[in-house]
């Protein structure tokens, strides 16, 4: 009796090998799941969190940052990858200077003439951990993530950008992206 049981067990054990072959055989004949990436775009880059960018729209100009140079982002950043350089007030013309002096003499409050938008917004992508702390702490909503997945460089310096310049440059028609055929399907 035991011997029969043993024999049945051995056969079923060996049968498990056949079952495994059936699974691989089945998938062998089924369509592939891989997206042939450079030739076909992948479907999941829509939610990708790329490097930071400044949001335009300051002073009604879509290519001027909304940023008010408060420096909250630089303070909040755990990796110290942001440096905000404030714009200096433009040198007042003689008339303005005179008006300013007059106003001061009259005891009026003088307004700081320095524009709010930053001179430079230096961002070191190579240090960034993309945690989003800066975006959450920006009082002006001036920062966001790009969906730019196609970023590569040859040295660390390639990842050190001035976001103000980047925003200004985006005015010019963007260089044609490597033509990626839209994903046919990856949810096969």
């Amino acid at each position, binding site marked *: 009796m035991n011997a029969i049981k043993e024999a049945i067990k051995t056969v079923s*054990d*060996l049968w*498990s*090998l056949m*079952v*495994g072959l*059936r*699974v*691989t055989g089945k*998938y062998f004949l089924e369509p592939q*799941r891989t997206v042939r990436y450079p030739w076909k775009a992948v479907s*999941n880059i829509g*939610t*990708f*969190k790329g490097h930071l960018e400044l949001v335009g729209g300051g002073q009604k100009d879509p290519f001027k940052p909304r940023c008010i140079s408060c420096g909250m982002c630089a*303070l*909040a*950043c*755990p*990796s110290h990858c942001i440096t905000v350089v404030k714009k200096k007030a433009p040198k007042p013309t003689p008339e303005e200077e005179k008006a300013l002096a007059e106003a001061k003499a009259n005891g009026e409050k003088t307004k700081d003439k320095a524009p709010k938008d930053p001179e430079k917004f230096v961002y070191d992508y190579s240090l960034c*951990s*993309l*945690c*989003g*702390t800066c975006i*959450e*702490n920006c009082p002006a909503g001036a920062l966001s*993530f790009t969906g730019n997945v196609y970023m590569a460089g040859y040295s660390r310096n390639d990842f050190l950008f001035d976001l103000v310049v980047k925003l200004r440059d985006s005015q010019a028609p963007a260089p044609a992206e490597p033509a990626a055929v839209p994903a046919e399907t990856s949810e096969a």
Partner: protein
Amino acid sequence: MTHSALPDQVAGDFYTNNFAKNAQEGSLILNLGPQHPSTHGVLRVVVEMDGEYILRAEPVLGYLHRMHEKMAEVKTAAQFIPNMGRVDYGHALGWNWAFVGAVEKLAGIEVPERAEYVRVITCELNRLASHLLWWGAYLLDLGAFTPIMYAFDDREKILDILQAPTGSRLTYSYFRIGGVAKDLNEDCLSRIRAFIPWMRERLPMYKDLVSDNIILRKRIEGIGVIEPEVCRRFGATGPVIRGSGIAYDVRRSDPYSVYPKLDFEIPTSDLMDARGRYDVRIAEFEQSLRIIEQCLDMMPEGDVLVKGAPKPSWKAPKGEAYFAVEGARGKIGVYLVSDGGKNLYRTKLRAPGFCNLSLFAEVSRGTILADAVAILGSLDLIIPEIDR
């Protein structure tokens, strides 16, 4: 291969020499790792072998040590969250939660209910991803090349889902003190709903492909038996201890968040061997799916971040707090001490893999090399978490 069997050759490093001091005559000292295909990163195990048999083994750590605990001393509490995604790349959200939970406990911050559900859902999805990664990698250790590809196929779906709210695919820093960074939108929720039946359909295939396979069974049955008592002395947790028959799960024993409201089981196995741990993890797939399913139904509307959530410049109040969650590998604990200053005074991270790996020297004694690989894999090690 720094150490050699020949006496006239270049001597080994500190650990090899220290280990070789107690070596038997005529035995072979072999360094498995730090670069070795089955040590998942940079674990190194010095083993003393007699032929194929292991007489003694000693794991050598520290190749991926980044001193997260020191980093916590130079960052504010909120700024430290991105670090938690990098401690354990397999189950990053578990660590997110442990740290955020500890800060919340310290400061007495209540988390909105929807945020709790979002945390449970994402954390369980992440656990599934982690178990899938383990499953594939473990079978790769055992010489089956194909399962990891199937596992990654499923894991990819989870990563796509998690990418939507978190923006990243591996090292999430998604939880915030007082909630989570972003709500799960309707599109994301519907994808999770679609994922659950998909995953359920895949599980029988896993069983057919390898779980029932006679070669696999022979490789893991009776290998690496860990008695519950040994587990306890070494402080092992997670699937390792559940595979030894102790139903210990932080989600049930020290309940946190909304887990008490959820109906799920703690799978255990009395086999105590690599097979037991394998079975427990496979059974946890189904339990995680159950949890997610219930959460989707029970999730209320509302905010996902508490009003007035701490800013990066926020100072944690004086005091101490210990918070533990159940990670994919076991009990993740974070112990915080704050002196009310800008940065936390002390942050202690309890990595489950650290305790689980300390078992290895004990368990591997007397096994053969191939079994050692099978045991190492069954502990589910993520080296960055162990080395921190």
